[in-house]
């Protein structure tokens, strides 16, 4: 079974603070994704990556940066957190070529006060 690990699992931040969400996958997948999930919405794509050194904007990238320093690690960075970024964030990895089956981490609940 593919393994995707997120940290932290829970985070409380203050408005204007910097938040980094980390994701590690041991599946050797090229593709990695960051989504946020809010009640009443499907998962919305923030940033994604095709491999080490690559980051691409998803559907809602404003206010977020991403970093893919290695095949295994993909971080989501909120330089200046805002209350509207309070959400549950999911990292996923997927296979080569087409996206293939996605494997999700367990989610990171972020509260921005």
């Amino acid at each position: 079974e593919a393994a995707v690990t997120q940290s932290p699992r829970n985070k409380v931040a203050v408005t204007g603070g910097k938040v980094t969400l980390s994701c590690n996958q041991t599946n050797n997948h090229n593709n990695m994704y960051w989504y946020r999930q809010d009640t009443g919405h499907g998962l919305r794509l923030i940033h994604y990556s095709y491999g080490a050194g690559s980051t691409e904007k998803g559907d809602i990238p404003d206010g977020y940066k991403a970093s893919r320093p290695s095949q295994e690690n993909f971080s989501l960075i909120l330089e200046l957190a805002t209350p509207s970024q309070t959400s549950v964030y999911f990292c996923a990895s997927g296979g080569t070529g087409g996206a293939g089956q996605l494997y999700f981490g367990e989610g990171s609940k972020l509260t921005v006060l």
Partner: protein
Amino acid sequence: GDQVEQSPSALSLHEGTGSALRCNFTTTMRAVQWFRKNSRGSLINLFYLASGTKENGRLKSAFDSKERYSTLHIRDAQLEDSGTYFCAAEATSNNRIFFGDGTQLVVKP
């Protein structure tokens, strides 16, 4: 999402009964995946289909790329089936993944 219309948005079932969830697609999809978000907030993989049907226990899923839909059937619903179910589909044209808005399922005794 715009490319995926998931229904119903909410569903209540009594234990032992069944129903179906559906996702309609506005464009041709290469594959579909179904998830359940459990009470702990984790996304559990249920099915990944490129075509046809798959069955696992009390769950069965079908995907018809040509007709642009996928279904998830639940039979003999149990309390632990409660949660939010999502479909996600991969567009053939650009490999993008589009999610439905979810179905909140509540199974009652």
